[in-house]
Each structure stands twice: as structure tokens, then as C-alpha cells.
């Protein structure tokens, strides 16, 4: 399934946060959205999944959903959003409870996603017992459980330390290699963007407009930490963003 943003503009009160955004998220690709803080990238992601409605413009979905899809537009949140009173299994179970799956079907799904995220041994643990990286893997497992058409990831690795971030990026890449998924990945971290993005969209500071779209051809599996091509992309992206970020930093936050 493909997602399209069509002339999206939005304001919070007097502040224009996004202005005339046109963007297509093609099937089977990871599109990274980067930009200075407060440029509206998270707002854009909320539009994509229908958690918020833009003032003008339209968000369109096109094409068939993957077979067995229970929730086409599925988020992965920065702060994991796990229910602290439910175990790992219970948290995944939650998103299957409102569907009309039989008990054995949902158990099969849970076993499958736990295995894919290497969490089988931790299925009965409570979130408070898990490390940050593990919590995010539970959230990824939960997202995989509903077989999404598009994954909407809102700075999924920002709450984690840099070692865990590397490990989880490898996890995401191997998940994508085994079964390519469509994803929109919002981040402020350019290193993540060049590692995971087939296409990187740079937003300007408020009001956010698309400043540049960079395509990276290197296959995900061949991207390594310190790859010169990626480093060059990252340096160029930083050049584009630098002045914007500095200016955004000097603005008063009033949203």
C-alpha cells in the first residue's frame, strides 16, 4: 500500500507549522523524515496515521493491504507506549483482542512475532523488568502482530542509548530484509536516517516545507557504521539542515 500527502498545511492557533507538503511514500520503502526540532515532523506522522487531522490538504492511501492486515497504519512510539500492567504477551494480545481472531490464531501470531523479535524468553515479563531496547522490541513485535501496511515510527530509537540504538537498527534492517515493509521513520538523528532510509526527506524549520529529498541506493543490508557513502550523505544532509536548525533553536517555543 502506498501513502500520499497532498498539499498538507496546518497551523496551531497563529503558528503555521506545516505548509504545502506533497509527498508519496512508495510501497516497500522506508522514508525518513528529518528536520530541526519543532518543524512539524511528528505532526506530519500523526496526520499519516489519522491521529490528527490537517487544516487543509488530504492524506490518501492507495493500493491493496497485505493479506491478514489488521491495522493498516500502525505506530511505533518514541516512549514505547506499553501498558505497564500487562506482560509482554499481554501487551501484544491487547491489539488482537478487538479483532475477531480465534484464541489459537492470536496465540500463533504472538508466538511468531515474539520469535521474530527474539523475545520468546521474556514473554511473561512486565515492562518494568525490561531495558529500554527490549521495551522497544516489544513495541515492534506489537506492531508486527497486526501485519501493518505502513509502519509509522516516531523517533523510535531516541529514548535509547547509542549502543542499543545500533543493535535495534540492525534488528529493523534484518526484519525489513526478511519481509520488506513500508515505513515512515521520523527522526532528528541523521545517522539513523542514512542507515535506514531509502529516501530521506528534509523539512525546513517552521513552517515546515520539504526542503530536499535524498535517495540512497545502497541496499539496507550493505549499510555499515562508518560507510563513506553514508557519511557523505550524512554530511550533506547536515549542511542543508545546519542553518535551519540553528535558526529553529533560537526561536521561542510557543506551540
Amino acid at each position, binding site marked *: 500500500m502506498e501513502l500520499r500527502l497532498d498539499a498538507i498545511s496546518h497551523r496551531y492557533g497563529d503558528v503555521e507549522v506545516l505548509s504545502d507538503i506533497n509527498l508519496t511514500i512508495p510501497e516497500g520503502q522506508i522514508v525518513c523524515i528529518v528536520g530541526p526540532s519543532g518543524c512539524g515532523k511528528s505532526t506530519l506522522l500523526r496526520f499519516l*496515521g489519522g*491521529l490528527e487531522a490537517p487544516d487543509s490538504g488530504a492524506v490518501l492511501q492507495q493500493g491493496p493491504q497485505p493479506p491478514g492486515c*489488521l*491495522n493498516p*497504519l*500502525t*505506530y511505533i*512510539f518514541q*516512549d514505547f*507506549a506499553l*501498558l*505497564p*500492567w*500487562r506482560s509482554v504477551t499481554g501487551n501484544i494480545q*491487547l*491489539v488482537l*483482542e*478487538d479483532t475477531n481472531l480465534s484464541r489459537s490464531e492470536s496465540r500463533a501470531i504472538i508466538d511468531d512475532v515474539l520469535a521474530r523479535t527474539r523475545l520468546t524468553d521474556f514473554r511473561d515479563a*512486565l*515492562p*518494568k523488568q525490561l531495558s529500554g531496547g527490549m521495551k522497544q522490541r516489544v513495541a515492534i513485535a*506489537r506492531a508486527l502482530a*497486526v501485519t501493518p501496511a505502513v509502519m509509522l515510527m516516531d523517533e523510535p530509537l531516541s529514548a535509547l542509548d547509542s549502543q542499543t540504538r545500533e543493535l535495534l537498527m540492525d534488528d529493523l534492517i534484518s526484519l525489513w530484509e526478511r519481509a520488506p515493509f513500508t515505513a515512515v521513520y521520523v527522526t532528528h538523528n541523521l545517522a539513523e536516517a542514512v542507515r535506514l532510509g531509502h529516501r530521506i526527506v528534509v523539512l525546513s524549520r517552521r513552517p515546515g516545507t520539504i526542503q530536499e529529498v535524498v535517495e540512497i541506493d545502497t541496499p539496507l543490508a550493505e549499510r555499515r557504521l562508518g560507510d563513506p557513502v553514508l557519511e557523505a550523505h550524512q554530511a550533506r544532509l547536515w549542511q542543508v539542515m545546519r542553518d535551519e536548525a540553528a535558526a529553529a533553536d533560537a526561536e521561542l517555543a510557543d506551540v
Partner: protein
Amino acid sequence: MSDNSPRPVPYRGGGFRPVHIRGVGIATFVVLIALIEWGTRAGWISNLTLPRPSDVLITFGDLWQTGLLWAHLLPSLSRLIIGAAMGVSAGIAVGVLIGLFSLIRAGLVPLVAALFPIPKIALLPLFVIWFGIDEGSKYALIALGTFTPTVVSTYGAVDNVDRTLIRMGQSFGLSWWSIVRKIVLPGALPGILSGLRVSIAIGIILLVAAEMLGAQHGIGAYILEAGSLYDLERLFAGVVILSALGVLTSSGIAWVERRLLSWRV
């Protein structure tokens, strides 16, 4: 001391963190009671100021043996349980509704704010007319007294449920009812339970007040009778029962919290 000699960095952290210390709570009671016992025996506390703790204990023993303890305690307990159950369940229901619906919030929050500061005991004559002199008026008094604090703590607890969890539920397409049942209510439970401590303590106060104003049996009636005869031993025996009731409900809630809220960090 020369400037070059190595000096240890002085420790200046620590403190400001409550730690669990066993036995001190009981020791406080023991020391206090022992002090009073000593004072009353030595004579520097006159027996009109405070009764001798050992006499209170003997009175308590009499109460137990004559069966009067249960004759007073059981009606009190049933009033408290029935009244508090009505008030608390209505309070939680209304509190959740206020937390979920802006219209109900706009309509009821001022009403609750108006009811809260009324000394409920002042309404007892009214309740006697409405619900009769018997148990009905006492239930109503305790129910109203526990209702308002429960409402306030419940809607506060619902307001404090992590909104990202609710957005998560919505983003996975959970139904409204599922979100309320599986995210809002469990998330509000810690706040609701800590509100219950306050509500039930208020319930005990109102129970005694109601029984003082019109009851044959009950801890309140017992204390009132003892008080009017200046029988300090019996008065204190009654007060001790009330304190024990307070400690008991508080530890009961603590037990429920440990059972239901073990997921808290």
C-alpha cells in the same frame, strides 16, 4: 596544611529519601503508652487527665468477655461497609464519567465542589427525615461523605492516565469501550486506591458522628455513653477500637495495592 597535599572530597549527597525502617512505628506506640502508664502510676498524670492504659486494657477485656464488643462493633462495621460501599462505588462511577466526558465534567465538577465542604453531619437531621431514624440515614450520611472525595480523586486519576497510552490504543483501532476498560481504568487505579484511604477515613469519622447523634449500639454510641459518665477507661477503649479500624482499613488498602499494582515501578 600545604595546598598541594591530596584532600578527600567531602561527601555531601544522600538523605531526602525515605527508607523503610522496621519496628519504629510500633516502638512509638509502646514508648508512648509506657510513658502514660508510668505517669499515671507515679501520680504525675492525674487519673482525670488520662486513664491508665492497663485499666483501658482491662475494660477492653471486659468488653470482649461480656460480648458487648461485638454488639457495638458489628452494627458499626455493617454501617461503615454498606455506606462506604455505596458512596465509593457511586463516587468511582461519577468520577470516571467526569474524567471521560467534558459535558458531564462541566456540569458536575461545580456541584461536587459545592457538596465537598459541607459538613455532612450537619445534614443528618435532613437525612433522618428522608431516610428514617434507623440505618437508612446513617448509610446515607456515610455514603455522601465518602462520595465526594472519591469523585475528586477518581477524576483526577483518570486525568492523569498517560495520554500516549490512549493514543496508542486509538492507533491500533481499539474500540472506545476497550480503551476505557483496558487502558483508562487500570491506569487510574493507583489514584483511585490512594483516594480510597482518605474516603474511608472520612467514612469512619462520619460513622461515629452519626452513631453519637442517634444509635443504641455502635462504637459512637458506646463512646458517647462513656463520655457523658466521664468514664475515661471506656471512652479510651472505644477510641482504641476506632484507631484499630483506621489502621486495619489502611493496611487492607495497602494489601490490595500490593496485589493489584505490582506492575508499578
